[in-house]
């Protein structure tokens, strides 16, 4: 293995439900300029490689890769797109620097979800075109199926799932980047409109716009440029079957195996004691609990109780989604994982303000690629 790799810069635009004043290029440019400043880069010309995380149909442009370089200062530079969440981009930059070929690599992801007028239809376009698509259902039914299976198998209760929403929206009240902070009761969450039963409306994310840009660097460069480099200790990404009929609904293998891969690199044997806090995907309420159990922080069927008891609160034993998560901040499509990394960077640098956690040495971010996939990525970051 080659040198260590660190994140030395982050820049972003505050997520908002609508951003009619700027184009995606202008939004990303703002994030890039801030990121390069944060990384103390003397010029964008010092950057060796660039990665964008995007999907064509979320942009409304075929071969969206075409429109990625200008707003990053990447004209005539090694640049490409990864079809995946920002965490896949972080993993990509990590590997490139480890080869020794590149010293500084930039990762970008953004969301212009407000520009997509038919998002459920587009998601339905991701299910099997021969076997599933003709059913013509709103694809969130897949989350309903999975939640039902999760509740039955782990004996988790709907109240426990609702407590995730209460916690994350409350956490979001203390995050000035969040769009959906709220003081809610369990009953309000459970009594909100039935959507894809057992899911209710408040247990599902809303989408927002925003852009985020990271600068990663090799050990030597990182130490030279930044006082508080945040080290990438491990990266993992795994896909379970895309086929709904053969997927293992009882296990969340993408989370389990991708975290295992990252733990191995980071030398983590007991995540609950060795990792201080977690930022895991919570696109739907139950997903946070399912993910925590899959990554080995809680045993099967115990995460829900822990959440209800307050163990996952910022003041609890295992703080989860102090940022407010996607339920609190809003989902940023492929940039969602990026905003989890942002929270970790702020916490590890000691720059999280009112949300600052005392135990802030090592943290884990987990992203899920969303309906209808069983794919996800995991990144572990640390101050040392």
């Amino acid at each position, binding site marked *: 293995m080659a040198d260590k790799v660190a994140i030395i810069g982050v820049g972003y635009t505050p997520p908002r439900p609508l951003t009619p004043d700027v184009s995606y290029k202008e939004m990303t440019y703002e994030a890039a300029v801030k990121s390069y400043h944060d990384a103390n880069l003397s010029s964008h010309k010092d950057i060796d490689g660039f990665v964008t995380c995007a999907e064509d149909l979320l942009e409304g442009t075929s071969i969206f890769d075409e429109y990625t370089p200008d707003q990053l200062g990447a004209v005539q530079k090694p640049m490409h797109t990864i079809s995946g969440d920002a965490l896949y981009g972080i993993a*990509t930059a990590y590997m490139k620097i*480890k*080869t020794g070929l590149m010293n500084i690599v930039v990762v970008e992801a953004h969301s212009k979800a407000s520009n997509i007028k038919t998002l459920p239809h587009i998601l339905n376009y991701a299910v099997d075109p021969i076997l599933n698509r003709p059913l013509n259902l709103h694809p969130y039914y897949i989350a309903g199926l999975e939640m039902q299976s999760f509740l039955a198998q782990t004996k988790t209760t709907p109240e426990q799932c609702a407590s995730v929403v209460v916690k994350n929206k409350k956490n979001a009240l203390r995050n000035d980047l969040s769009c959906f902070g709220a003081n809610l009761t369990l009953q309000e969450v459970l009594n909100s409109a039935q959507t894809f039963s057992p899911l209710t409306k408040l247990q599902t994310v809303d989408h927002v716009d925003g852009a985020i840009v990271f600068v990663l660097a090799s050990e030597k460069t990182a130490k030279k440029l930044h006082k508080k480099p945040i080290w990438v200790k491990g990266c993992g990404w795994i896909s379970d079957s895309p086929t709904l009929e053969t997927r293992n609904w009882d296990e969340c293998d993408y989370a389990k195996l991708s975290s295992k891969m990252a733990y191995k690199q980071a030398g983590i044997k007991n995540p609950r004691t060795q990792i201080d806090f977690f930022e895991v995907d919570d696109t739907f309420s139950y997903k946070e609990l399912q993910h925590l159990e899959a990554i080995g922080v809680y045993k099967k069927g115990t995460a829900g109780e822990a959440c209800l008891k307050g163990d996952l609160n910022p003041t609890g034993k295992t703080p989860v989604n102090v940022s407010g998560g996607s339920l609190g901040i809003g989902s940023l499509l492929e940039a969602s994982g990026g905003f989890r990394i942002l929270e970790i960077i702020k916490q590890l640098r000691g720059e999280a303000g009112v949300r600052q956690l005392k135990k802030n040495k090592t943290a884990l971010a987990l992203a899920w690629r969303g309906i209808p996939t069983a794919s996800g990525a995991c990144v572990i970051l640390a101050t040392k």
Partner: protein
Amino acid sequence: MGVKGKVAIVGAGLTKFVRRAQETPKELAFEAARAALDSAGMTLDDIDCVIHGTAPDAFDGLHMKGEYLLDGSGGWKKPYMRGYVGGGTGVFAPIQGWYQLSSGLFETALVVCEEKMSSCMPHPQGAFLTIFDNLTERPLKPNLLWIFALEMNRYMQTYGISVKDIAHVSVKNKNNALLHPAAQLGKEITLDEVLNSEVLAWPVHREMVSPTSDGACAVILATEKRAKKITNKPVWIKGVGWNLDSSYWTNRDLAYPQYVENAARMAYKMAGIKEPRKEINIVEPYDPFAYKELHHLEGLLLADRGKAPQLAIDGISLRTGNMPVCPSGGLLGVGNPIAAAGLMKICELFWQLRGEAGPRQVPGKPKTGLAQAWGDLMQVGTVCVVGI
């Protein structure tokens, strides 16, 4: 900085390239992956990670096409990632495989590229209508042929090149493809037949355009330690390069692909190649249109600017010439299932350098080859130098 881990290609396989395949996209990906694994005497259990390459989602009619294709590509419960640079993807995918292995994270990789263009009805070109700028260009209803015709014309005007000069490339590649077992459009064709073919978008003639195709292609990569156990004839990835130019294509010099030169220089530097014209024995540049082979040879510094047509005219780029170019038959002859077509070029080099290209074998025991792909809005170059 210096590159650390060495990576080799140890297996390759592909499907037939056809206008319309009965196989689903997943089945095409499977057949190619299976063939590549078989060629290396490996099973999926021997594979640490899977890299997938495929061009616009719109062809197959799928959102998150990479996710849909992952089980067909052998990605189930594995680290699976899809990289994307439009038409340049086919040569980018092995580059992605290279950095994933060279990083030290993995020892083996399965790289699969697939395209099923026929799903897009009534014509696959429909998928290209949405590649143009959504605000300033799409209202003009541009089709894909426009931009290639515009670029080809600019290239011809800048250097005083004729359509006839360029037509030699079609003759060479389509004839070369006659001997390729996967080829869709191999044929004996004369210069006059190319020149007399229908004008689609002047100066582009029908026989100067690659077809739309269905097909898949796969290679197996391994680190030095593993490669030597798998085969006694590894083909090493010696240099990689990729480069993306501005999306403002109407503000750029269309006569010369500077981004291809940048990618080539990056690959040559890593491979330690100082005199590419002497050191590269076989070239597989991207040839979706006849002029692109020439454009790219110049960008790759294998011909002087405006002088590449002479290579085909003089027979230097024939399979038996001093610098064989597209001995596979290229996209013009073998076919163009976008990402799979780029990776087909890597397969060709693998077989040629191992002396396994059968009737297509380039004489003289070639040692070093170069494959290149290109895409987006005439803006990306991907280059891979391989050798034994």
